[in-house]
Structures are given as C-alpha cells and as structure tokens.
C-alpha cells in the first residue's frame, strides 16, 4: 500500500513547524479516511434533518392539517386521552405548530396486551380531534434517527456515531494546523489544473467556507451524546446516572402514584396560565403524570424553538394535577446550563427561522461535500503518484469503490426512499419498514455495482441518482394532487419546496455524473500523468506552494 510507506508520522528533523504540519497532515488524512464514509452519511442525513417535519409532511401528502393554538391542541388531546387512556401512567402532548400542525400525543398504557410494550403514539387532527390516518411512513424521522443512531440498537449506533464524531473533530483540528494560509486557500480554486489540484482547492474552499459551522456542529454533536460517551464526570459526582438525570432534568422525574383516585384538573386553562407566566412564550409540550390519581402533576415546557439556549432543556412549569395550583418549575438555566443549552441548541437548529434554516442546510451540505471531496482527494493524490500507465493498486480500488458506494450510493438510496414512499401501496403491512428496507437495499446495491463496474461507477450511480431525483416531482404529480402545478399557485411551500429541492439536487448529481464521466473516460484514454514520485513514493515539494507539507501526502 503506497500511502502507508511513509516515515513515522512525526519527524521534525530541522524545521519543527514543517514537521508538525507534516504530522498533522498525516493525521488529517487518516483520521478523515477511517470514518469518512460513515461521516458522509451522518452529514447528509443530518443536513436533511433540519427539514425533518417538512420531509415527513411531503411523505404524507394526504394529510393537510392546519395549525392551531397550544390551548386548542391541549383541549383536543385531553378529550382523546380522557376517552382512550384514562388509566395510563403518563400522557405526553406536543402542541400543534406551524411546522408540525398535527397534535402529537403518546402514552404508556397501564396494562398493555401481552407481548407489547404498550407505548402508543397518535397524531390528532387539531380541528376535528380525530386520529389522523395516513400511509405508514417514518418520514423525516428515519433520516434524523439514522443521523445519530445509524439504525442500530440503542447504545451501539450512538457509540459508533460518537466515535466517528471524535475522529471528525480530530480531522478538523489537524486540518486547520496543516494549513498555514487558511484565508488564502479559500480564494484559491484551480479547477482547470485538474485532478488532485482541483479536488484539493475544492476541499479547502468548502472546509474554510463553513469552518466555524463544521467545528460547532461536530463538537456539539459530541456534547449531545456526552452522557453516553463520557460518563466519568457523572459517576465521579453522583452515585448513579439516574440521580444525575433527575437533578439535571427535574421536569421528567417520575413521581409515584398515591393509589387514591381524584379527578384531573381541566388542562387547557393551565396553558393560558403558563403562557402568561412566560410573557407570551409558546408552549410546546405537556406531560401529565398519573392522570386520575390524587398525586397527579401537570408539567408544561416552553417551545425549544423560542430561544437557541433552550436546546437542552426549555423552562418548565409544574401544576398540581387535582387543584391546578402552581408547584413551581425550572426557570432559565444558570450560566453553565445556558452554555450547554446553546451548544446543543445550535446543533439542533430548532430555533432557526426559514432563512437561517436554509443557511443551516446549505452549510451542512458544504460540510457533506467537504467530507466527500476529502475522500475523493485521498484517491486523486495517490493516483497521481502512480507510475505512468500503472493500474490502480488494490487499496486505491477498494477506497474508490467505498467512496462511490458511500457518496453516490447514498444519494441513490435517499432518492429510492422517497420513491418507495410514493410507489408502495398505501395499505401495505409494515409499509414504513419497507420504505427503509428499500433505502438500505438501494444503498447496498450501489456498493455492489461500484465494485463490479470499475471505471463507470461514479458516472452511472450519479446519473441514476440524478434521474430518480429529477423524476421525483413527476412521480409526485402522478400519485398525488399536491404536485408543483398545484402547490406553487397555492403557496404550499412544504410540498413545492421539496419538489424544487429534488430538482436542484438532481441537477447537481447530473453535473457530477457528467464531470465524472468525462474524467473517467479521459483517465482510461490517456496513459497516465507524468510521474513525479521519488524513490520513496513521495512527490517532491512543489516550489512556491503555500502548503508543501500538505501536498506531499
């Protein structure tokens, strides 16, 4: 493996600064590569997750619900829960919002039927109060969950995502140290130079463009998983984790039932009380503990989207569930809580209004492209060092297959997921599962195709993704009546925005397909580039280059 045959990562013989940059360049290359494929998937699904509710709404086109006030939401939820779940240990109510107009309720059934966990989720139409029946789909939630759980069992997927995140943090920091002229690099783009140059300039521009965002999103992602990844702090100060969580999130602490029945206070008036206490702040969720018991309590939480620092925990107010008397609550967090809440809030981006949300989306796509171009750069550099006319080494071919399957293949998989949503029959049993199965099947097939098709893999997979995405609005028009022809005149920006974004993404993939088609053809026609590799496999430093250390890797 050519890339490995290099001196020990750090050997600052004469110039310590140059040695440091070389060592950091090595670290950047390998820390980035090892988890690069996974990180690309985490970045792309994470970027899409900023539009999680909108994606879900596109995937349930038969649902056209209008948002209502929090008080009305609670009224509707209360009526349903009193009828269907009077014995539940807890009720959870999430109020209707402009982005998610349905009233979402869930409860733990007191005596679930054998073999079931008994946790039920229902979405109600806030106007009619009826349960919403739509095609079964996981919608944007699937992409959101995949982003940090990777569709694995609960601790494992998160652990893997956390490890990948730590590698990303190290890759970013070592990448910064590698670059002497961070600012100058940003304005350097030499696409005509081709090959390694173009990839590197593109990679640098994308990385520097969003550097504060990339650092923030990586660090805050780790903080989100901190209690899982780094439990030492908790265990040092507390006897067990439960104790910590009860102290950190008191509104969620479960209180025991008294065993004595008592009628539950009407819930909707409590919303008005809380709104008054919060100066018109929006109410997002309500938790009713032990409804119908004398020890019942009702906790209301302020909307996470009200302030960026509410990311970890929004203020809550708790009322006695029988008398309706306020029992206190958690107010604004202290300094540390506000910092941690802001770090997490910045990651979730729930505070961002449409314009900023789009900025979030575009910068995270730049981050996705940063990972993607980094992976492509790994190939481009090593290919350039090959002897003239020499075929790709095994490691090069392997990485190239993994790159194509992970980058172009994931785009194909996402497109296939949206296609499945429109094509599968609405009443198919376990329909939501079939959608995700198709997602993974398309992704796996892309890897297989990439392994079999050699030089054409990038062009074909990108072209397939482009075709699927460009035809998605057409498919939408054939299967629903909320197509662009209807959604645009009606100002239905959720549906129209999705269709238009699919078109733009399709055009982008088509451009990539065109580019890679030309490149792959050129590569097969031309014998090879000139060989500059020295006997040790390292190219000589380029004269006048601002980052010779980086180049030589």
């Amino acid at each position: 493996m050519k890339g490995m045959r290099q001196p020990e990562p750090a050997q600052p013989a004469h110039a310590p600064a140059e040695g440091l940059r070389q060592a950091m360049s090595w670290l950047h290359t390998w820390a980035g590569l090892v988890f690069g494929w996974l990180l690309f998937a985490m970045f792309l699904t994470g970027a899409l997750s900023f539009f999680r509710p909108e994606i879900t709404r596109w995937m349930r086109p038969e649902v056209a619900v209008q948002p209502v006030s929090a008080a009305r939401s609670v009224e509707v939820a209360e009526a349903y829960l009193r009828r269907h779940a009077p014995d539940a240990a807890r009720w959870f109510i999430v109020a209707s919002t402009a982005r998610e107009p349905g009233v979402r309720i869930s409860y733990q059934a007191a005596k679930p039927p054998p073999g079931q966990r008994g946790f039920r989720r229902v979405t109600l139409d806030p106007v009619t109060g009826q349960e919403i029946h739509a095609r079964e789909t996981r919608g944007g939630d699937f992409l959101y969950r995949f982003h940090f759980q990777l569709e694995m069992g609960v601790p494992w997927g998160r652990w893997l995502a956390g490890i990948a995140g730590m590698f990303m943090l190290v890759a970013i920091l070592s990448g910064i140290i590698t670059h002497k002229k961070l600012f100058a690099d940003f304005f350097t783009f030499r696409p005509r130079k081709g090959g390694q140059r173009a990839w590197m300039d593109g990679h640098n521009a994308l990385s520097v463009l969003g550097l504060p965002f990339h650092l923030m999103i990586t660090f805050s992602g780790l903080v989100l998983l901190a209690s899982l990844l780094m439990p030492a702090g908790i265990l040092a100060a507390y006897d067990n984790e439960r104790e910590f969580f009860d102290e950190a999130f008191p509104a969620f602490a479960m209180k025991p039932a008294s065993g004595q029945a008592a009628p539950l206070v009407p819930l909707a008036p409590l919303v008005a009380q809380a709104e008054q206490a919060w100066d018109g702040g929006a109410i997002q969720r309500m938790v009713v503990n032990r409804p119908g018991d004398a020890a019942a309590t009702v906790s209301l939480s302020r909307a996470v989207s009200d302030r960026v620092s509410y990311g970890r925990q929004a203020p809550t107010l708790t009322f006695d569930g029988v008398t309706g008397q306020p029992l206190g609550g958690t107010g604004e967090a202290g300094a540390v809580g506000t910092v941690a809440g802001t770090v997490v809030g910045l990651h979730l981006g729930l505070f961002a209004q449409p314009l900023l949300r789009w900025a979030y989306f575009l910068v995270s796509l730049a981050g996705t492209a940063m990972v993607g171009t980094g992976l492509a750069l790994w190939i481009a550099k090593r290919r350039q060092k090959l002897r003239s006319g020499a075929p790709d080494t095994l490691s090069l071919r392997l990485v190239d297959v993994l790159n194509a399957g992970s980058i172009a293949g994931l785009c194909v998989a996402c497109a296939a997921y949206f296609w499945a949503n429109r094509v599968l029959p609405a009443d198919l049993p376990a329909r939501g599962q079939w959608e995700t199965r198709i997602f993974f099947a398309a992704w796996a097939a892309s890897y297989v195709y990439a392994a079999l098709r050699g030089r054409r893999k990038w062009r074909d997979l990108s072209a397939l993704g482009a075709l699927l995405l460009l035809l998605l609005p057409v498919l939408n028009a054939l299967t629903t009546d909320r197509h662009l022809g209807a959604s645009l005149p009606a100002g239905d920006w959720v549906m129209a925005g999705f269709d238009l974004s699919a078109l733009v993404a399709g055009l982008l993939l088509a451009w990539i397909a065109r580019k890679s088609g030309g490149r792959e053809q050129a590569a097969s026609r031309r014998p090879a580039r000139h060989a500059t590799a020295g006997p040790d496999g390292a190219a000589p430093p380029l004269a006048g280059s601002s980052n010779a250390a980086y180049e030589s890797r």
Partner: protein
Amino acid sequence: MLRYRLAVTSRAAAAIGGGYVLASAAAACLAVWLPLARVDAVVAAQMLSFVVYACAALWVFATRNAWRAWAGVALPALVLAALFWLGRAGGV
C-alpha cells in the same frame, strides 16, 4: 515497514485509548473540583473533556517519539486521577 506499522499502532492506541482515559480523568477531576453546583460542574466537565480528548490525540501524533506520546497522555491522566481521588476523599 513492520516497525512503521507498529509505531502507528502504538500511537493510535495512545491517542484513542490513552486519550479516552485522559479525557475521563479530566471529566472526573473537573466534576469534583469545579466551584459550581454539582450538576453544572458535571455538565461543564463533560463538555471540556472532549476538548481534552482532541488535544490529547493531536499531541500524540505531533510529538517526536512514541515515549513522549505515551508520557504526555499518561502523566496528566495520573495527576488528574490523583486530584479526583483527593477531591472525592476530601468531600469537596
């Protein structure tokens, strides 16, 4: 080649395993010693521990030889762990 691979493996172990131990020691030490409410100290310690972890990884690959790499991770970890025990025993 073998020597090179062993050196890389050793540093990777120092960065990944050693770095995690160092970060955990830092989290434990800070959780006990930071002059904040207990829950705040833990949260602050959690956040800072990731910075420690990243710095440890950079140090391991930046420094001249493997001995310095390991020592730079192990010594601070020992000091922080000792401070943690001290704080815990003293009931800070």
